[in-house]
Each structure stands twice: as structure tokens, then as C-alpha cells.
């Protein structure tokens, strides 16, 4: 009876999505108590605006993390794709042609994702090291061959798209507050990715591969093509995120994302994605991104010096990992290799698995 109670408690503590909701609620209460005037539709729109780009990047990272790797090249891929696309497409044109730079950016993102996949598969190194290397190469190539200066006037169709509002309301204080129309593609992409991961064979294969590569291989998952798919998808999403950022900000600055990896990775891990692969959800990632954005935008209203921001986000990352450790004591993630079943988990195979785990 007592044991069952403890287990239930652990299950609740281990449910990261629930905990994120609680944290978001606590934050709202803190802001409401300290600065109630901030709880307006403006804040809602601001948080949506600031989350959009991070969210698409986070979904790109989520796919790689579920597959059992850690990608750190997504920001480099994103700005490379967006900056190049801005330089490639015509400057003028009707607003209806705004899809073109997005298509070009996604295509470049896929191409860079394929480079990542080639390095991961070809060199057989861990995804972290491979993408650390490729991101440096991507940025070097961007600065050397495409350009390193800020583009202040982006193509006309993009500029129009970026300043088109889905909703425009009078702000609580003065002026107007707006929700960009670009929030729609972001939502569609999140829903589509969630559906892909949940209901397609390819999506399930990514989970299987991340949970246990050897077991997935034996179960008939083609590892090579799945890795290629993961990086192509992740690259496409990063390209989309980069272009969304450029359209929203009205300028293409090649250095704009530098140092932002922590925010995105922290959001994904907080959202319940298991850092060693095999588990994670788009829903959790959305919550993780929202929590981090809310924290970032609450610091000023709460009167906390902005210098604390990084420390707070780092602490949240630790919290996320601790929660995962708790949760994994509740739910065995690699049930297929449960040591209780000696037939399915003979000693030599388990050593393979440990090595594969190290490589990741």
C-alpha cells in the first residue's frame, strides 16, 4: 500500500508535461502577484511571437533527439538556409510569391541535413561531434562564400508577409499589438510533425532507432535510410525556422542566432524528450518552449535582473534531466531489453548496446 503510494507520487513527479504546466501556472501566479498589469493579450501575443521561431527549431531538434542523437547544427543550418535564400530570390514581386524564399530555404535546409547525415553515417561518429563540426563548416562557408554582412532590406514579398497580421488588437496600454500570420505555418508544422511521429511507420522507426538501435535493426528498421530521413526533416525544419525569423525581423543577420542553442535544447529536454533517445513528444516540446519564453519575458516585469536569465534556463535544464531520471525509474524505457528476460537480452548484445549508447 505504502509502496503503491510512493510509486504513484513518483509517476506524478515523472510526468514532465504535467510538471511544466504546474511551473507555467506558478510563473503566471508570480507575475499576477507582482505585476498584474502584464497579464494582457499583449503578453500572449509577445510570447507567441517570441516562441514561434524557437518552436520550429525545437521540433527540428526533437526529431534528432528521439532518434538517439544530439544536434547542435540546427541554428547554423537555419541561418545558412535563410540568408542564402534571401540572397537568391528576386528582390521585388507580388506578396503571393513569398512562398518562394521559404521553399528555397527548406530545400537548402534539406541539403545541409543530408550533409549532416552523410557525416554521421560516413564517419560513424556521434551526432553531437558530427554536427558540432558541420555547424562550424556551414558558418565558415556562409561567411566566406555567401556573405557575412547584415541584409537590411529583405525581398519585398517576405517583408509584406512578415508584417501581415492574423490578428491586430489595440494594446492594453498604448498602440496596437499584433499576431503575425506566420503563426499558422508554425502550428501546421507542429501538428504535422506530431502526426508523422505518432502515426507513420517511418515516425515509429525513429523512436525504435532511438530507443535501441540494434533492437530496431533486428526488428527490420533500415537504420541508414532512417538516419537520412531524420536529418533531412530536421534540416527542412531548421530552414523553415530560419526563414520565419528573417521574415518576422525584416532583416537577415548571419550572427543573430549565435549562442542560442542552449535555449532550444533546454526546451526540448524540459519537454520530456529523453536525451539518450527513444522518447519525446511535440506536445511536451511546445510546453518546454512556452515555459522558457515565459520565463524570459517575465524577468523584466518581475524585476529580476536580466543577467540571471541564462542561470535560470541552465537550472531548468538540470531540473529537466533530474525529472527524466525520476521518470525512468517509473517507466522502463527499453522494455525490449529488460534484464528480467535473459532470452531477449543475452550478455554480448547488451555490451553492444552499451557501446552504441556511448557513441551517442
Amino acid at each position, binding site marked *: 500500500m505504502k509502496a503503491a503510494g510512493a510509486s504513484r507520487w513518483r509517476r506524478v513527479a515523472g510526468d514532465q508535461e504535467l510538471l511544466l504546466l504546474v511551473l507555467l501556472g506558478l510563473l503566471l501566479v508570480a507575475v499576477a502577484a507582482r505585476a498584474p498589469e502584464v497579464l494582457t493579450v499583449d503578453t500572449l501575443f509577445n510570447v507567441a511571437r517570441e516562441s514561434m521561431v524557437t518552436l520550429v527549431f525545437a521540433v527540428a531538434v526533437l526529431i534528432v533527439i528521439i532518434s538517439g542523437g544530439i544536434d547542435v547544427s540546427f541554428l547554423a543550418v537555419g541561418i545558412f538556409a535563410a540568408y542564402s535564400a534571401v540572397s537568391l530570390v528576386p528582390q521585388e514581386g507580388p506578396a503571393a510569391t513569398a512562398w518562394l524564399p521559404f521553399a528555397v530555404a527548406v530545400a537548402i535546409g534539406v541539403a545541409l541535413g543530408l550533409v549532416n547525415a552523410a557525416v554521421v553515417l560516413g564517419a560513424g561518429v556521434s551526432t553531437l561531434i558530427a554536427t558540432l563540426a558541420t555547424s562550424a563548416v556551414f558558418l565558415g562557408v556562409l561567411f566566406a562564400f555567401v556573405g*557575412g554582412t547584415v541584409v537590411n532590406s529583405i525581398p519585398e514579398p517576405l517583408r509584406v508577409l512578415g508584417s501581415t497580421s492574423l490578428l491586430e488588437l489595440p494594446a492594453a*496600454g498604448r498602440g496596437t499589438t499584433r499576431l503575425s500570420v506566420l503563426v499558422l505555418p508554425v502550428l501546421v508544422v507542429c501538428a504535422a510533425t506530431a502526426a508523422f511521429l505518432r502515426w507513420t511507420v517511418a515516425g515509429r522507426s525513429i523512436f525504435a532507432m532511438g530507443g535501441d538501435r540494434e533492437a530496431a535493426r533486428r526488428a527490420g528498421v533500415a537504420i541508414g535510410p532512417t538516419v537520412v530521413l531524420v536529418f533531412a526533416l530536421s534540416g527542412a525544419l531548421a530552414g523553415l525556422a530560419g526563414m520565419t525569423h528573417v521574415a518576422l525581423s525584416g532583416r537577415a543577420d548571419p550572427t543573430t542566432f549565435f549562442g542560442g542553442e542552449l535555449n532550444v535544447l533546454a526546451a526540448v529536454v524540459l519537454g520530456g524528450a529523453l536525451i539518450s533517445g527513444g522518447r519525446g513528444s511535440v506536445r511536451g516540446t511546445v510546453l518546454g518552449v512556452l515555459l522558457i519564453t515565459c520565463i524570459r519575458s517575465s524577468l523584466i516585469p518581475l524585476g529580476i535582473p536580466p543577467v540571471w536569465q541564462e542561470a535560470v534556463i541552465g537550472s531548468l535544464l538540470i531540473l529537466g534531466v533530474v525529472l527524466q531520471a525520476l521518470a525512468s525509474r517509473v517507466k522502463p524505457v527499453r522494455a525490449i531489453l529488460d534484464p528480467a528476460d535473459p532470452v531477449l537480452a543475452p550478455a554480448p548484445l547488451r555490451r553492444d548496446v552499451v557501446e552504441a549508447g556511448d557513441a551517442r
Partner: protein
Amino acid sequence: MPQHLSATLVTGVLALTLTACGTVGSSSGGGDPAGAEGSSGEYVNVVKLTGIAWFDRMETGVDAFTEQTGLAASQTGPATADTELQVGVIQGLIAQRPEALGVVPLDPGAVENVIQQAKDAGIVVVTHEAPTIQNADADIEAFDNADYGTKIMAGLAECMGGEGEYVQFVGSLTSETHMAWAEAGLAAQQAEHPGMTRVSDPVESDDNADTAYEKTKQLLQANPALRGFFGDSSQDVPGIGRAIAEAGLQDDTCVYGTGVPSETRELVADGSVDGIYLWDPALAGQAVLSAAQIIAEGGELSTGTDLGVEGYGSLVQSPDNPKTFLGDAALALTAETIDDYDF
């Protein structure tokens, strides 16, 4: 294999000889013994970060220096505004033994050591935007920092009618010049415009327009009466202006601060930004290298020295630091005058 080795040796010796020739050529005017040995004779300007319009413009001044003097000069810097990266860039350059380094430090305190290393290696070092520097040979400032901060505040206060809440942005709280302008602006406001109030300590933008944009929106929400913005980093005003434009508050707010015409032209035209202040980074870059050339050739800077660059025709030695020399090169641009500047 031995053949290959000897070929390498010959090439190496030839290269050394050529380098030596170059050195003799470049320092012929001064006969400075320290710089002569193994120096490449090049003048290198190290900026805070590459790729932003401000330092791209500075690079044209470096090119103008080459045109004017015939000396080899180039510009480099870290790809992100990171102090450690900048120190690494300078350390890498020391090994190449240039004649002189111009340095625009991100954090003057953090480069003192590496500047000393450069000087120990016989390299002349002249800084810019580092008025408290101790180890450099000299520091060139476009103007007196207090004057500049006071000037921005004068514009802001006039626009606000001397009343209301305002906020100051700085690139980082460790940026000495940004803080000096902010403090001078605050002091001028307290002395002359008691009807105005600063709502918080200076807000950091990380020299990033997106950060400035997000923080502006948060500040507008947290402070409904906020009307004035005082930006110190060249990336502050573009971000602040975009937030103002999106909220449709052009006529309701006053935005003044450091800015580059190319990055702010549209915002100034539609009234989101009301005035930008700057010095021409091209002239500053050229002035830094000219000062370095004078020192490398054995000369000295003093009050009244003419660097041969507009706005730096008669330097004034700073009363606070004998190594710092001030020019008179500040520009104030509004919607009427911004189109005269094409950078």
C-alpha cells in the same frame, strides 16, 4: 625526399628574406628598432565583431589608410561579440608579427594582458572605444564620451519636452563607452530635466537588435508611461524602432541613440526612430591606424596632433588618462540629413 626538404628550406629562407625586405620598406620613415625584427610590416585592425554594418564601414577606413599611405593594412575580428574569441584573434595575430594593431575591444579590461603581450613582441597597439586602457600605446576616441551622452540626452529631452519616463539600453553592462554615455546622459537629465525619470538601470541588448526588440516590447508593457528610449549600442535603435513601428507608437515615443544610417534609414523615415548619433567608423578606423603609424615611426601623440583625418585634425589629451586622445567627430542625423550618408 631530401630534395623535397631542401626545396622547402629554400622556400622558407626566401619567404623570410622577402618579409625582411617588406619590413625595411614599411618602417623606413622611422627606424623603430622594436618593430623591425621579423615584423610583417602590416597594420591590422581588430574589431569587436565582423559582419555588422558599423565595422564594415570601418573597414573602408582601413582601406583608405592603405590608399593614403601605401602601407599594407587589413581588418579582422571575431564572428560573434565574444571577449574570449577576440583575445584569441589578437593572440593569433601576435604570432604573425604585424607592425601595429588597432583594437576595438569588447571589454577593455579583458584585453589588457594580450595587449601587453603584443607590445612585448614589439607591436604598436592603439585602441579605440577604450578610454581607460593602460597597456596600449594610445587610445583614440571620436569624441569626449561625456559630451556624446549629453548630446543624445539633449535630443531625447527636447523630443519628450523634458518630461516623462525613459529607459537606457547598453550593449553590455561591461562596455565602458556605452556605460559612460549612459551615465553622462543620466547626469545631464538629472541636472537639466528633473521632470524626466529613468525607469530602471540600463538594459542589456547583447549588441543584438532582436534582443533589443523583445526587451522593448516587455518594457512598454511593464511601464505603460514609458515614452523615451536612449540606445547606446548601434544594434539598440534598430530593435527598439521595430518594436515601436509594430505597436504603431511612432508619434507617442521618442527614440534616440547610436545608429548606422543603413540599418535605421527606414525607421528614421517613418518616425519610429527620431534621431541617430554616430561617429563615422571609417574615419575612426583610419585615425586609429594613422596614430599607430605615427607611434611606429617613432613619433608621439599630444594635444594638437593632426592625424590627417576629418574630425581628428586636432586631438585633445584626455584629462582622465594620458593615453587617451579625443577627436571631435560626432554626428547627429535626423530624417532630413540621414540620406547624406551611404553606409
